[in-house]
């Protein structure tokens, strides 16, 4: 365990998984470096969400290796453990606690002890309060901190969920379709926010919105049928004939 297998923050090698005979991931391999912001594109059903399921412990791969932070084998851990190790995840469909206030959503996400008794006797400290207020500023929800999350717009829920990820203080963020349902202005703000976040940690973003991907201006991986089709700059990838045939051309 103590000898590093890789220097990458995330390392997937030859990962495959099938659902009832259907190969959702097919010998998928790729690597994310510490501090990297990576965009992932690909047609519907390419396996992008499934890849996140594998990394976060929701789905077990049939074969292949998944290592986090050098030497931690993620295929042996469950969701809660992986989250505590420092991997945060935003779902494709925004998932926040609708019957809690914005404030409580962030308080629950805060990276503190998560046992029954630690939460039972938890008191909000000045430090935690400042941290939540800082995140509220970052995701621009300060004015709404006492509203129920259910009353937020779709785009605001996406932002709240990103705020919850920040509160978790993860080393690696997996963000599944963050700008779905957002206006153009919100979309470009989200790009700025994610770039800002990526200054201090690694981020993997899955998106269909090519304008947004262009705004990010980072290395792009295109998945199709469960494996990597092309990888490189956005111009390189979008000029790849296979990518055009499989994804952009459709």
């Amino acid at each position, binding site marked *: 365990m103590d000898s590093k297998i890789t220097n990458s923050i995330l390392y997937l090698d030859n990962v495959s998984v099938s659902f009832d005979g259907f190969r959702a991931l097919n010998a998928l391999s790729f690597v994310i470096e510490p501090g990297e912001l990576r965009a992932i594109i690909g047609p519907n059903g390419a396996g992008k969400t499934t890849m996140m399921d594998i990394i976060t412990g929701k789905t077990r791969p049939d074969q292949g290796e998944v290592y986090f932070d050098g030497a931690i084998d993620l295929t042996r851990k469950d969701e809660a453990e992986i989250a505590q190790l420092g991997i945060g995840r935003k779902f494709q469909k925004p*998932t926040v606690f609708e019957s809690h206030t914005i404030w409580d959503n962030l308080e629950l996400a805060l*990276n503190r002890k998560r046992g029954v008794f630690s939460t039972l006797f938890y008191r909000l400290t000045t430090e935690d309060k400042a941290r939540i207020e800082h995140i509220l500023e970052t995701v621009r929800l300060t004015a709404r901190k006492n509203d129920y999350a259910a009353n937020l717009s779709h785009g605001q829920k996406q932002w709240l969920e990103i705020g919850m990820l920040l509160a978790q203080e993860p080393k690696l963020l997996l963000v599944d379709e963050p700008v779905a349902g957002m206006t153009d202005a919100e979309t470009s703000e989200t790009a700025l926010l994610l770039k800002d976040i990526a200054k201090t940690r690694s981020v993997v973003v899955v998106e269909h919105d090519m304008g947004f991907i262009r705004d990010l201006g980072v290395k792009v991986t295109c998945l199709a049928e469960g494996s990597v089709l092309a990888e490189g700059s956005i111009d390189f990838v979008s000029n790849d004939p296979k990518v055009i045939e499989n994804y952009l051309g459709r």
Partner: protein
Amino acid sequence: MITEFLLSRHEKKTLVVAALILLAAILVPLANLLAPEGSLLHVPDHLVPLMGKYLCYALLALALDLVWGYCGILSLGHGAFFALGGYAMGMYLMRQIGPRGVYANPLLPDFMVFLNWKELPWYWTGFNHFWFAGLMVLLVPGLLAFVFGWFAFRSRVTGVYLSIITQAMTYALLLAFFRNEMGFGGNNGLTDFKDILGANIQAPETRATLFAMTALLLALSLILSSAIVRSKYGKVLIGVRDAESRTRFLGYRVENMKLFIFTVSAMMAGIAGALYVPQVGIINPGEFAPANSIEVVIWTAVGGRGTLIGPIIGAILVNFGKTIFTAAFPEFWLFALGALFIATTLFLPKGIVGTVMQGSKARAERQKAVAAEKGRTAAQPSQGAAAHETQAAE
């Protein structure tokens, strides 16, 4: 830390209901024992245990609300925990009979003599002590819930499947307790109790005291439950109820969260059963009947799940209705109950308390909107923000 935990951050309505219950704990015994018979204030003897019984049901419904209303675990087997608490108390009461039984055996309860048993089964030892029985009232339901929950929550059994296995659990216990060989009095159960802690169990003073104890424990359980659900742990429970996987991906061990509240709730149900048995004078396997557990769900739904006070109100109202109704048309009660449940689901999905609360929240929001229009909101910080200030200051 514990006192601070118990005293902090209750909602006003919870405190009001707890105070009313405590008031009843004092006034009902006084009105029964001191007010002269025939006076308007007098509470007749037969009503005291009846009201005590309602409060036991209220405590059971409160216990169910903790798991169902706050964590989304629809237990259809809470009657089993209630019955086990009741049996633990019943065993103590049986052993207090001593040589006053029909067969005058100083050690063995009548039903064992009748079965020709020569010695007390090992699991009856200790039950001659009140403290031991009291401990078992908590431990037996708590342990069953812990073991059951350990397997169920770890294997991620949820929803309808979980409800079905809780129902199967209580049914299995029903069948087991019916058997004479189990040593719990078979289908007759445990009855003919004489005294409790040396006091005649039929005496008005004893019954008044039992009522007062029931009310006191109900009020305490309400405060404890409120402290639990309003803590960060309680917020996690609501998170599990509304978005279980989100909670998991935030790093919480959902199975442990569920296991704790399920066990606490089972112990609370056990206390309710233990208070019920001396007041009604009998415990038999019928208490394990699946239908009983379903009735608890109906009381909770009618009162309003996820509100703590709703289930208390629901249990009292529905059982009061049952007393009136069964006196007039005994054969129709089950139909009436079914109709009540359907009507609640259709017209009051949040139950009585939930609907009232929603009404007042909507009013408050309208007022806030009006205030915002007048541009006054900026001047006055909202209540929630003030609460965070004080919490952080401590």
